[in-house]
Structure formats: C-alpha cells, structure tokens
C-alpha cells in the first residue's frame, strides 16, 4: 500500500472543504490556500521521488484488488504531471494574494482553485477510465465557476462556448467509456491494456480510440477542436488564466499520452499517423492565431494551442526518443506558459491594459521585469539554452531520425513564428516608449501598485523563471526523468504488472 499516491487528491479536497467551511473569513482562506498548495507540493514531490526510486506505485482504494475497485496509480508520467500541477497551484496561490479581488474571494475563489487542483491531480493519478471521467468533470466544473467569477460580459460570452464545447467533450468521453465497458467488461486501465487486444474485432477498438481522440483532443485544444480555448482563456482574472494555461489542456495531453501508449497501441500506423497530422495543423493554426492578435493574453492563448502540437508530435512519432521529447516538452511548457501569463498580469498591473498598442516603456522603467519576461518568452520560442530549446531539440531529432520531414519542417517554422510573436510582445510592451495617449492610465496603475503586492507577484515569476533556466542548463536530470517516464510508457508491462500484479 502506498498512501502517498492518494495524498495529492486528498490534500486539495480537504483544503477545498475547509475553505468552504471558513467561507466567511478571507484571511483563513488565504492561509489555507498557501498552506494547502504548499502541502500538495511537498506531497507530490515525495510521490515523484518514491515513484522514481521504487517504481510504479499503486493504491487500491477501499482495499478492493484491481481491477475490481478503483486504483490510483503513480507512474512517472503521472507523478511528474502531479508535481507540475502542484508547482502551478503553489505559484498561483502566492500570486493570487495581491491580485485576486475581494469579490472573487467572497464567491469561492479559493475553494474552487483547490478543487480544480484536486481534479487535475486525480486525472493524472487515476488508473480507471470512468474515474478519469469523474476527475475531468471535477476540474471542469471548478474551471467553469472560476471562469465566470467577476461576471463581466466577456467572461459570460467566453464561458458559454467554454462550457458547451467542454461538455460535449465530456459526453464523448463518457460515451467512449461506456463503449469500452461494453467491449471489454472492465474499466481498469491496466486490465483494459490486457483485454483490449483480446477483443476479436480490433477495428472496433480503433473506432473507440477515435472517440477518445476527439474527446481528449477537445480538452487538449488540438486542431480542429480548440475553439473554446481562444474564446475564453483571456477573460478571467490573470491568475486564473495562468492556472488554466498551465494545467487544463495538459490534462487532455496527458490523457492522450496515457491512452495512446497504454491502451491503443495496436494500430500505430493509423492512429498515430492521425495524431501526427493533428499535431502539425495544431501547431500552424495556433501560431498564426497568435501572429494575428495584439492582446497579450490572446497571443498567449493561441500559443497554448500551437505548443500542444509539439507535445502531440512527440506522442505521434512514437519512437522512444519522441516520447521522451513529448514528456520533456510538457514539463517545460507548463512552467513557461503559466509564467508568461503571470508576467502578463504584472504588465497589466503596471500599465492598465493588455493591448500591446496601448502600453510600452517597460524595459526602461522595469528592466528586471524585462529579463523575467525574456526567459519564459525565449524559452517558449525554443531558443537555447533555455528549457524550450531542449524540448524542441529532442522532438526535432526524433522527427529527423524517423525521417518525418514534413512535421520537422512544420515544427521548425512554427518555432520561428513563435519567436515572432514573443518578440512582438517584447518590442511593443518593453522596448517601445509608452504611447502618450495612454500615459495617464499607466501612471495611475503604476502608482496604485504597492511594492509589497509587486514583490508577491514577482516571487512566483522569478521562481518559475529560475526553473526554466534550470531545466535548460541542467537538462540532464530532467532528461533522465523524462527518459524513465517514456520507458514506462512504451513498455506497458511495467504498468500492467504494477497494477494487476501479474505478467500479461
């Protein structure tokens, strides 16, 4: 028994429940916010360490042996994702202290974030397909509520699309789970990995795989299913955007990695070829969307889409190195993307706008902020020696080795266009002088921002930037981790044996 596997779910659940009970005291909620996410971070790091040293950990809920009860499974991918979720949660919890308004606190901001994290961690750790659906719903409803906090017009418009399209995705997932049970009579992933190949009509398995592909594709924001994301991600408070940007789509990506390595690896020539096309178009459409926009959060939102393409590309190439690249890329991306939103938030609190045409002059007045922007921005664009370069390098190398020239070309060109939009933000917000017509507002915002608030905002940003630099310069341990994770993913016997305790 490994109780640490359940802790990343239990801790935010308790923190969320406590925040609800103390809903009248905002101070208590803030404390619970920081302490709860801090505890989650520690628990998840312990989990990752134990998973790395002891192999895949399994927790049979209710003491019912797999495949009959629900199991929580921590393999390296799951544990890595959990740690990343916890890092995000902790960083955003600190960032929220000065940036979340009293209204939002009064209407459940803190319990919602805890439960969002619980849902995300649950999705990463569960070893049961229906349970995955439940976690996805938990994080989805939490995100719905976070998205509309504030009740502005844009939030409402964005939320309607977000809710409707994500519900569609959930229903497809539910449908696929139902069909899976109808096909195999089991819900446990490891058991499915054993029983799916025994299904007589393998074509039907591929058909069900397609339903999962669409459902997770919507969640991941892949082409041509991503519409909900650019429609809504720029509307909530920036801390929420950062949390969403770092985590939500990655649940979809994680699920794709899990399902298309463990369960659907019987017809790689077909399913993964489809994924490859999907990844190419995802990269292109996302990056072009970003090139079109002039609002920081919209640019960043579209880049989420395009970056998802790189991760899926790693999965789609399906060579050991490519999977390593995919996992590495996910690690790098979550940190960098969330950080960019956080920096965008600081820009907003200093200038009063996210519109690039209305702001400027930050390099002159806040050079350190410029550096803190450049680190994640250049990393996102894949420039060395930051984390993004190594992620991209692994994936490109895998593509070259597989002689998939088309996707390599796309990945390279999209990298250049990513640089283009990051530089756009840099040149406009930092290099350009502050446009005079908006100078008054900018000055007023900069005056009202207290030093203490600014420090609390910079703290998580600097920490995440340091991680970006570390993943770049010290890529070896991260690579080893990704390599070990990929090895587990590609050889499903590890997983099956850990869960079912038998050799298939």
């Amino acid at each position, binding site marked *: 028994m490994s109780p640490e596997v359940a802790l990343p779910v239990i801790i935010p659940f308790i923190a969320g429940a406590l925040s609800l009970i103390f809903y009248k005291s905002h101070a208590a909620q803030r404390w619970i916010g920081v302490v709860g996410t801090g505890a989650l971070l520690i628990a998840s790091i312990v989990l990752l360490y134990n998973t790395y040293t002891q192999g895949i950990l399994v927790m049979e809920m209710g003491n019912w042996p797999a495949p009959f009860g629900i199991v929580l499974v921590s393999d390296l991918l799951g544990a890595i994702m959990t740690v990343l979720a916890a890092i995000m949660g902790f960083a955003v919890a600190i960032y929220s202290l000065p940036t979340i308004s009293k209204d939002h606190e009064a209407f459940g901001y803190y319990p919602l974030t805890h439960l969002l994290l619980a849902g995300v961690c649950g999705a990463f750790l569960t070893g049961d397909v229906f349970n995955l659906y439940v976690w996805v719903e938990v994080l989805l409803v939490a995100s719905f509520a976070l998205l509309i906090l504030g009740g502005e017009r844009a939030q409402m418009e964005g939320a309607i699309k977000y809710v409707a399209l994500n519900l569609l995705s959930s229903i497809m997932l539910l449908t696929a789970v139902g069909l899976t049970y109808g096909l195999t*009579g089991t819900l446990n992933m490891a058991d499915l990995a054993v029983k799916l190949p025994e299904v007589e009509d*393998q074509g039907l398995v591929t*058909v069900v795989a397609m339903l999962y592909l669409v459902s997770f594709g919507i969640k991941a924001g892949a082409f*041509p299913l991503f519409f909900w994301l650019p429609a809504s991600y720029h509307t909530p408070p920036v801390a929420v955007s950062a949390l969403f940007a770092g985590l939500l789509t990655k649940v979809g990506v994680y699920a794709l990695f899990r399902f298309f390595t463990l369960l659907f690896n019987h017809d790689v020539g077909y399913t993964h070829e489809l994924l490859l096309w999907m990844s190419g178009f995802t990269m292109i459409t996302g990056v072009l969307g970003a090139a*079109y926009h002039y609002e920081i959060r919209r640019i960043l939102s579209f880049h989420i889409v395009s970056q998802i393409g790189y991760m899926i590309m790693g999965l789609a190439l399906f060579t050991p190195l490519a999977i390593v690249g995919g996992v590495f890329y996910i690690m790098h991306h979550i940190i960098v993307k969330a950080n960019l939103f956080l920096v965008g938030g600081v820009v907003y609190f200093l200038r009063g706008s996210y519109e690039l045409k209305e702001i400027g002059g930050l390099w002159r007045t806040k050079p350190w902020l410029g550096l803190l922007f450049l680190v994640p921005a250049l990393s996102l664009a894949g420039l060395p020696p930051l984390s993004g370069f190594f992620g991209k390098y692994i994936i490109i190398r895998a593509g070259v080795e597989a002689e998939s020239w088309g996707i390599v070309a796309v990945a390279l060109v999209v990298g250049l266009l990513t640089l283009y939009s990051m530089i756009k933000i840099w040149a406009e917000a930092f290099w350009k002088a502050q446009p005079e017509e908006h100078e008054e507002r900018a000055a007023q915002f900069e005056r009202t921002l207290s030093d203490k608030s600014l420090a609390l905002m910079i703290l998580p940003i600097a920490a995440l930037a340091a991680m970006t630099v570390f993943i770049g310069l010290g890529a070896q341990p991260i690579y080893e981790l990704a390599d070990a994770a990929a090895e587990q993913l590609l050889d499903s016997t590890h997983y099956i044996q850990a869960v079912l305790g038998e050799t298939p």
Partner: protein
Amino acid sequence: MLIAVLSGFILAAFAPWLTRSLGDKAGWILALLPAGLFAYFLTWVPVVITDGAQVVHYPWIPGLDISLSILVDGLSLLFALLISGIGTFIIIYAGGYLHGHEDLPRFYAIMFSFMAAMLGVVLSNNIITLFVFWELTSITSYLLIGFHHEQKDARWFALQGLLVTVGGGLALLAGLIMLALAGGGSFELSEILANEDLREYGFYTGMVILILAGTFTKSAQVPFHFWLPNAMAAPTPVSAFLHSATMVKAGVYLMARLNPGIGGTELWLYALGIFGALTMFTGSFMALRSTGLKAVLAYTTIMALGTLTMLIGIGTEQAIIAAMTFLLAHALYKASLFMLAGALDHETGTKDITKLGGLRRLMPITFVTACIAALSLAGLPPLFGFIAKELMFEAALQAPTIGLFFTVLAVLSAIMIVAMAAVFALRPFIGDLKETPKKPHEAPLSMLIGPVVLASLSLIFGLVGFLPAAALVAPAVESVYGAPIDFDLYLWHGINLPLMLSVLAVALGLLLFWKWNAVLAVFSRMTFIDRFGPERGYEKLMDGLVWLAAWQTRLLQNGYMRNYLITIVLTTVALTGWTLFVHAGSPMPLGDISFSLHEIVVAGLVVMGAIVASVTSSRLGAVATLGMVGFGIALIYVFFSAPDLGTTQIMVETLTVILLVLVLFRLPSFQKLSSTASRMRDAVVAVSLGGLMTLLILAVNAVEVTEPISDQLVAWSYPEAHGRNIVNVILVDFRALDTLGEIFVVGLAAIGVYAMIRLRAEDKAK
C-alpha cells in the same frame, strides 16, 4: 578552457554593476577580460602548431549527446584570437563612444554575453552546443541592434536580423542533426569530421541545403544579405564587432569547419561558389551606391563574406589559403574602419560622406589611420589586404570549374572596392571643410587606440607576411583543408596574371573614384533595385504572414458557436465513421429486437419528445417535452432492472424542470433565427452523429463480454461489503472515489451558481 569560454557570461552578470561603480574608466577595466582571453588563446598557438588539434571534454547533458567539449585547432584559434583581440578594443571604444549613456551598463552586459556566445560558437566541439551558442549570438545581437529601441526603425531592423538568422538557424538545427546521423550518431565535430563517408549519406543534398540555409543567413549571403546593412541601426561599436570578427563570420566559420567533412562535392562547389561570387559582386555594387559611412562599410562586409564563401566553395589549396588570409586581413581593416567611421560620426554628427570634407587638419590621426586601413581594403601593397587579394585572384583563376565566372566577378568587385576605399579614406578629409552638426575635433584616445593598433597590424602583417602565415594562417588552413599545406605569404611574387588583374582593378577603381559623383547620380536613380530586392521579398513575406494569420484566424475562430460545433461534430463523425467503415470488419448484426408493448410505447414517447423539443417554437413546449424525455428514460431504467437509476432520474428531472422554469422564463421567447437551409444543414450534421452512435451501439452490443468485472463485485457485495443493494455498495464502497468526485462536482456547481446569482444581486445593489 571552459572558464575562458564562459567567462564572458559571468562578467556579463556583473557588468552593469561594475560599469556604474567604475564610472569613466569602466571601458578600460572591463577590456581586461578580453585582453586576458587574447593572451590566454595566444598561449595555445604553439600547442596547436606542435601537437595539432586539441579536444577538451566537459560533460553537460550526456543523455542527449550534448557536451561542452572544446575543440582547439588552427581555425578555432584564429577566430578566438580575432574575437578576443578585436573585442578588447571594441570594449574600450564603446566606453568612449557611449560615454555617459544611461544604457551603457546593460550594453556591456549584453556585449559580453555576445562575445562569450561567439567564442562558444568557434570553440565548441559538440554541434548542438555550437548551435546553442549560435542562437545565443542571434538573440544577443538582436538586443544590441535594437539598442536605440525607442526608435521604430531600430526595432524593425533588429527584428529583421533576428528572424532571418534564427530562421536559418532552425534549418541549421535540422541539418546538424542530420550531420550527426550521417556521421554515425556522434555529435562531436572531431569524430564526425573524421568520418570518410559523410558525402555518401542518403540525404546528403538535403543536409547540405539545410546547413547552408543556416550559414548563408548568418553570413548574409545573397539573397539574405539585406539584414546586414540594416543591422547598422546598432551603435557603432556593435557594428564594428559584428562585421569584423563576430556574428556574420559565424556562418563562414561553420562552412570552413565542415569543409573537410562535407565539402568538395559538386553541390558544395556550385552552391558556395556561385552564391559567394554573387554576394561578393552584390556587396561591392551596393557599396558603390551608398553614401553613408557605415553603409559603405556594411556592403564591403557583404563583399568580403561572399569572397570567403566563394573561396571555401572552390576548395582548392590556393582557395583555402586565400580564404584564411583574407579572413584575417578583413577582420583587421574592417574593425579599424568601422571604429573610424564611428569616430567621424561621433565627432561631426553625420554619417553622410557627401556632407563631410576637409577634416584632415582637425582629425589627423583619424585621417592617417583611415588611409592605411582603406589601402588594405583596396588591396594595395604593402598592406596585408594586398596579399589576400592576390591569393584570391589566383584561387579564382585556378578554380576547378567556371573559373572565368569567378575571376570576372572578383575583378569587377575589386574595381568597385578600390573606388569605395578611396571614397572612404579621402572624401571626408580632403577638400574644403564642410559645415557639420557638431564642431569636429579629434576623437578621444579610447576611440582611437583600436583603429590605430589594428591598422598598424595590417601594415606589419603586409610587410612581414610570413609571421602570421606560420603562426595563425597555416594551422587554420590545415583545419579547413583537412591536410597540412606548405606555403608562405609574400608581398611580391613576381609579375603574373593576378598582379596584372590587380593593376587593372586599381586603375579602373581610381577612375571610378574620380567620377564617383556622376556614378552616384546614375545609380541612385536606379530605384528598381530597392523596389525588387530581396528585402522587398522579406517585407512581402511578413505582410503575407500577417495577412494569412488574419485570414485563417477569422476563418477558424470566427466566433460563431455553431461553426465550432459543426466542425467538432463532423470531425468526430469523419474520424469515427471512417474508422468504423474501414477497420471494423464484421458486418453489423441487427441484434435483439424483441420488445413488449409498454417498452416500445415509452421508447416512442422518448423519441417523439426529443423531436418535438427540438422543433417546437414554444418554450413551455420545449421544457415539457424535455421533461417527458427525462421521465421516459426513467421508466426505461425501471423496466430494465435499475430502480435506483429510475428514482434518481425522476428526482433530477424534476429539479431540472423546476430550474428551467425558474430561470428560462425570464429569457425572451424563441425566435426563428436560422434560415431553412441552415436548418437542413444542421439536421444533416445532427443525424450523422446520431446515426453514428446507433451504429456504434449495435457494433459494440454484438461483442460478447465473457467476464465483466461486475461479476466479482456482485459476489463480494454481501459477504465482503455487507450490502444488499449492489448499486449502492458500488457507489459508497467499491467505487467510493467516483462518488466523492461526484459530490464535489455538485458542491462546485452550487458554488458557481451561487457566485453568479449573488454577483448579480450585488450589481443591482450598486
């Protein structure tokens, strides 16, 4: 050695602080680092001469075959000496040029990073590390070019340089990875180049093109040359460094480095030779059309880069000797000339040659130094540039193919360069003193020491050419050629064809100088060059990109919910349906169609309810039929042995209807908003998904499941879990985690609803 390479980065971190605390002397003191490095690299010269190439290995990311190993041979040492040597003077110079500028501290920080990155490029033995430094030079040079970042032009040109070089860099990355694969998997240059059969690699052509895409963009070869003159938006110290020893030379370095491994093929010869020659000619021609001090120099840099590329492409012994000699000569005079141009600009306030004149008395040192450096540029004896140019002519004449083409272009370029060298060295200084924005006087020592020393070196090396040949050029030639070559560098090598060509070039060049005003008048009217040049291509490409981005984003992310839905639904139908059609083998069995009357009635009611709900124009009707569907489904659950489900469904349905009634009737009544055509389209989309689901159910139902896990759950339910209602036992025990998640969903929904409603109430209160 590693510390030597990385010391620039370390100093960069402290440079802003040092600059502030050292004040006026900052430039002189900071220059100690590159000076020290220069001395350090000098100590390696005897090592390399006696023991050959040295590889020092430091681990970095072994898992990805990335190491910090360092390759010290003639070529890398020549470059390292140029970078650190010229860098020393540049740092001193910048202290004078940007004296008192508020951004000087961060300028030094970026400058040292740039220098370190450049050292990294030329000293890396690992191709990925080389690439890392390569990209670092791009990004740091971006920050340097955009130094005057509040000016729109500076930002635009900085971006241009960045996009062109990084774009090429990305192609280079792919090319380098292929190179490693071609070499059997090693990423170490020393091992790759030892490989004999790189040229037999299956994708050799693609690999070379990708690598050249990187080097050509970096080294400003036609048609990518346009970014380089624009990069003069940078302050002059940057331009001087960028053009003479760094950045643009990185491309040349890499081609020279890879020449022994992948060079020598027809592709290599033609690609490098032709593009190089054209670049050489274009550079000289554009220089002739320019009137800016820095512009003239920038175009002559393009000429030099073209010459080097051409020579590496030709690849014969003479060509490589010429290339390395030319490289050294160019670095010396170009750095010197740029710094002088900066001094002129700095002291007079203008960079336009036509607005300068008669400065020889006011700026005598500048004048003399400019003359010496320009003589080297023009390739006249007794300067080092002369030796280099003679060798170049000889190499062109003896090229394995199309020698005539190379020679003609080389001579034409030489003519124009002679003219421009004369223009640069004489026009600002002779004649009458012209009115300038600032009152001119001699530049400070910090700005003169560099040009004077470097120009003197041009002279000394010219007079005693064997010195550099033995120490610097010969080992470099050996690295590039791949085998040792015995040669000497002499000013005088008899009256031969190259000398005749030189005489011709000088004569015609001086004629051109004499008539420069007229030439300029003619050329400046030839605006089609600007209208149709590759820079327009770049601009069109950028415009096209913005247009494409706008077009596709408006097309896809158009804001219409139903378009999103249709896209998603059709994608689902296409993927799933196509897979079902192609892959699912067995014909669809019809399955069990037995039914009893009450079942079929309820089923019919459900379908009817659904259809009526979707077409009715009355809100009440829609809600009522929706309720009917819900209760019908509840009955179906009850009919088929699921009492708990039936009860729950009824409860939920009741609450849903209550909610709908409470909430929806505050909304406007239904309107007919869509046209009949779009209704038809929607119906087709909807039915296709519905049909797909029907097919899926039929297909899955045909599959017999032998042992569902629920059998075990049923068996355990009472003895182990002490419950008789198996569904409830599953909910609270076997799958309690699901239920826990479920109640969290319900709780979350309540919070969300509460927040929405209460926020509204607060709005109203306000």
